[in-house]
């Protein structure tokens, strides 16, 4: 400990306060300010570290999606586009597409027609820019095609790693599972930061810039519908689908959760989702449940539909049915 110097302490004489700048006081002062600068730098260090990991200060200070003004959002979309161009070599068109008026999306899938070919799971990664090691890597696909023994729906003995020469195999049936866009979505209730929520048209979405990667939502989901980016998504420029939107298929950063959004960048513009577009047997039906003339309403009125895990009370917007 240094001995107390005269001048420290509360009572200062006029002589002490007004004494001229000596070499000693100058050195003391500059040492203190140097210390202050060092402390400042130390406090800012996490921000600098973020910059090194391609997360700009702008992105770090970004507000929640639902609190953004249109101008802020425009700036963010521009920033995301140029960041993608810098790091991936391709400039995507990232849009913010809002829910349509008087629209609520629902999906129906005909188990009697599905042959388990996995074309939907592969179309999903082509459309939604999931990370992949090769073109055939569908580990991050939002769709899992379950193979089950005929006679019951036993999810515990189902197999989505089946590698058959030809499908459908005798004695088996196939049930693709993806996000069910639940009306009582447990994933949105457990999120500690409200980074995932349900939109007016029923789609459950994620703000990838707000997600902290805790994966509570993955634990809460009864359908294994969410995927986590353990590493920075691996995608070559030719694998990137440039038609993107903020809440759906734009490139995700490392450490966030992603999920099926019924391809909202397509469906909110009136198109069919990608998994339906490729289904070779026409097993998938999609539409606006509030339009009485839609195909999905025809299914609900005329076919015997069921929902997956009805007992957990999630009230899905995804229906399954058996038909020829």
């Amino acid at each position, binding site marked *: 400990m240094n001995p107390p110097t005269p001048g420290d302490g509360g009572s200062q004489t006029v002589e002490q306060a007004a004494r001229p700048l000596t070499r000693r006081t100058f050195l003391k002062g500059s040492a203190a300010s140097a210390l202050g600068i060092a402390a400042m730098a130390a406090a800012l260090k996490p921000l600098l570290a973020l910059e090194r990991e391609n997360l700009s200060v702008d992105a770090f200070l970004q507000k929640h999606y639902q609190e953004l003004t249109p101008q802020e959002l425009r700036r963010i979309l521009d920033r995301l586009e140029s960041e993608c161009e810098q790091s991936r070599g391709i400039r995507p068109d990232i849009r913010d597409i809002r829910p349509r008026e008087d629209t609520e999306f629902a999906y129906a899938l005909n188990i009697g027609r599905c042959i388990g070919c996995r074309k939907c799971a592969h179309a999903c990664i082509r459309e939604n820019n999931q990370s992949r090691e090769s073109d055939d890597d569908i*580990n991050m696909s939002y769709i899992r095609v379950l193979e089950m023994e005929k006679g019951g729906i036993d999810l515990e003995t189902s197999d989505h790693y089946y590698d058959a*020469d030809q*499908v459908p195999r005798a004695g088996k049936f196939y049930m693709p599972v993806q996000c069910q866009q639940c009306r009582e979505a447990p994933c949105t209730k457990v999120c500690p930061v409200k980074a995932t929520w349900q939109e007016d048209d029923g789609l459950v979405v994620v703000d990838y810039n707000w997600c902290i990667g805790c994966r509570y939502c993955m634990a809460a989901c009864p359908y294994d519908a969410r995927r986590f980016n353990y590493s920075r998504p691996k995608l070559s420029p030719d694998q990137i689908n440039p038609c993107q939107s903020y809440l759906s298929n734009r490139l995700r950063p490392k450490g966030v959760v992603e999920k099926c959004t019924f391809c909202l960048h397509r469906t909110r513009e*009136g198109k069919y989702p990608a998994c339906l577009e490729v289904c070779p047997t026409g097993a998938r039906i999609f539409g606006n449940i509030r339009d009485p003339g839609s195909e999905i309403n025809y299914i609900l009125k005329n076919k015997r539909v069921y929902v997956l895990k009805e007992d957990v009370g999630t009230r899905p917007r995804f229906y399954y049915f058996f038909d020829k």
Partner: protein
Amino acid sequence: MVLCAAPLAAGEPASPKLPPLPVVERPAPAKPAVGLSDDRHLDKDPPRTTKGLDLVKLGWTYNCMECHRLLEAKWHYDRPMAEHQDIRLAHGENRFCLNCHHPTNRNAFVDYDGSVIPEKEVVRLCAKCHGPTYRDWKAGVHGRLNGHWDTAAGPRTQLRCIQCHDPHAPKFPTMKPLPPPTYPPRAAHAPTTSAGIHPTPQGGTAH
């Protein structure tokens, strides 16, 4: 014919006196457009592509009456059809040509009363027997729609019966599934030795 050319092209030892037949490259016949043109990254091929059109692939026009003006129509043939080798008839009890094909106009199909159903309106032919399926197809829930669910926002295409089903064998053939997801490496095999605890990307354990 395509059946003669294929084995020779494959390098089968032919008779030394005969020179090998030239292999004629012909482009596959154009398929009707399905869905939107900017969805090129999605494979929207219906399960039945050009099966049953081998004669078209060989360059024939699709005017059946070029031959059938001379060949009379018969209800039943007691021998395999040598002229239509690509036809495999597996349509249940519906096994007579003239159940569907028109007896005097082979470019068209036949209705209940013997009148003509043009080839473009083949759906009406199938609807003669498959009423409930026709009803669902008209409602847009049998078969696949492509393009826009909201027809006010853009066009959509609807596949017709024979774009997916081979009318002579309408049950979908089995197909090779696309590759599965990989098994989680740590769970793939329980390590058997104390040294083999390091998972490899291939899904096994390193020794």
